[in-house]
């Protein structure tokens, strides 16, 4: 699984030689993944702390979900890749944690998205993931390379 890129969706035949993240359709995402800095290491770390405190009880310490709770990795990528990140940010902000929707601050929710991106194989960058819809609208949840599947 080392080596050249993997793109499973039809239309992206030629392997993209991206170090860490490859993108499915549309190809524009690929360019973005290469250049976009999604989040910082510290931010994802904060997100992890928040996650373990508010989310792990249902979604599991390793994001695996359970029989009746969706996982936040694996199948999750199919559900969200290609969508702009404001959608995910909004969903988490308004619907989660399920027992108290909307309880967390925008900064905490951005941290959570950063953590979820990290856990799905998206590499850290130099700038923090913003906590506003307007900024997140320009960023896309990328697909994952086989090398990063956990």
């Amino acid at each position, binding site marked *: *699984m*080392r*080596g050249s890129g*993997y793109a*499973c*969706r*039809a239309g992206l035949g030629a*392997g993209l030689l991206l170090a860490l993240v490859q993108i*499915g359709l549309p190809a524009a995402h690929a360019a973005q993944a290469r250049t976009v800095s999604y989040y910082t290491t510290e931010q994802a770390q904060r997100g992890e702390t928040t996650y373990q405190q508010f989310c792990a009880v249902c979604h*599991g*310490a*390793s994001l*695996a979900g*359970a*029989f*009746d709770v969706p*996982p936040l*990795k*694996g*199948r*999750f*990528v*199919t559900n969200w*890749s290609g969508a702009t990140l404001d959608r995910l940010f909004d969903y988490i902000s308004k619907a989660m944690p399920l027992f108290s929707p909307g309880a967390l601050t925008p900064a905490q929710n951005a941290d959570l998205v950063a953590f979820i991106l990290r856990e*799905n*194989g998206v590499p850290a960058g130099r700038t923090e993931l913003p906590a506003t819809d307007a900024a997140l609208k320009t960023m896309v949840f990328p*697909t*994952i390379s*086989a*090398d990063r*599947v*956990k």
Partner: protein
Amino acid sequence: MLVRWHWRGQMQKGWNLTGFDDNQKIRRLRLKRRDLFAGSLAFGAVGARGMWNSVPAAAAALQRTAVGGTVPRLVPMRAHADQITDIKVCLRPFRPAGPRLDVERVGDKVVIHNYGHGGSGWSLSWGSADIAVGKAASLSPRRIAVVGCGVIGLTSALSAQRAGFEVTIYTRDMLPHTRSVRANGSWTPDSRIALTAPAGPQFADVWEQMARYSWKTYRDYLGLPGNPIDFRDNYTLSDTPFEEGPEPEGRTGPGDYASTGMPRATSEFATYGDRIRDIIPAPELLASQDNPFPVAYAQRAPMMMFNFGAYGHLLLSEFYQAGGKIVIREFHTPADMKSIAEPVIINCPGYAARDLWGDRTLIPVRGQTAWLPPQPDVMYGVEYKGAAALSKSDGLMIQAVDLNNVGEMEGVGNSFEHADRAEAEKAIAVFENLFARFPAGRG
């Protein structure tokens, strides 16, 4: 508090894992109550029921005796060697580190492994499939291939369909010819699934995730026509009190896996049962006046089991109904996977991975079951003297679980996948003898 009270019988690995197959080390494996109930015996076996405020407290009262009159009249099993209709032998695909679930690239294909489930493949199948399909899904393919059509391949294929993918199974054999249908077929989720040391603590978490997910999925198949999945009361019998006796080591030679490359003692095998005891029915003792067996001690626990015929056909028709395709094909090397059209492949060849994938960590663990005609009026299972009998819809299954008193070491390293009639007859004789004296004292 160190509790020196060993549970014996039912399942060597913890009372909650019913099961026999591998699991029941009928006379030799005792539950380490220390692990199960550490600190919880304050209420102890005599604790007032009304005071149970936690699962451990309730479990600590486990020496509960079945409510009088709840043992139904049991139709005796007709266990005689001249009734044998079939003897099935298989090799459990045992990996000391636990099942292989990692991701590998072969050419432009991504291969997600899902093999090596030891004596727990049926039990853990759905949970393991869910993990493999999750990995596949993170690559967002449209179509997924599954290699193998044993219980692991079939549940992987169905799970992938349920996650929205188009699925093709590539396999050498269809289910009836696989090792899977040569199993015992009951809920034994930590039967020779790993060795504690090489698997490490992380695998315990993965195991729990798989076991819980599978258990819930199986509940969806209960109560259907033909009873693909069912429960049976399982009676574990003993001539001596369950809580007595030294803990056997089940040792077959010096050293251990680390020093010899093979496990040498039962104590090396991982036991994870206590992690899910909150959802697995516990056993209860039978008071002697309720005990119909001609044996001093009996306990009973409801046990989930899989009727291969009804369940196998149901899974296959679900797969076809959802548009699945099956291609009969044999692969000789990993490179052959490149001939598969789909970009993502879930690899479920079972024990065959030892050669197909050159995985020398796979250790064969031989097991054999004898099948007698179905006895639909017999609605229970029995374990006694190292043998297990279970009435299933496709026959009365009798298995020599541990006639040699070596516990989990039984069959380890033995790849003689060929029927041993003498072994079958020995196991059947245990029950022939038992039921010749049945029922005890109530007749």
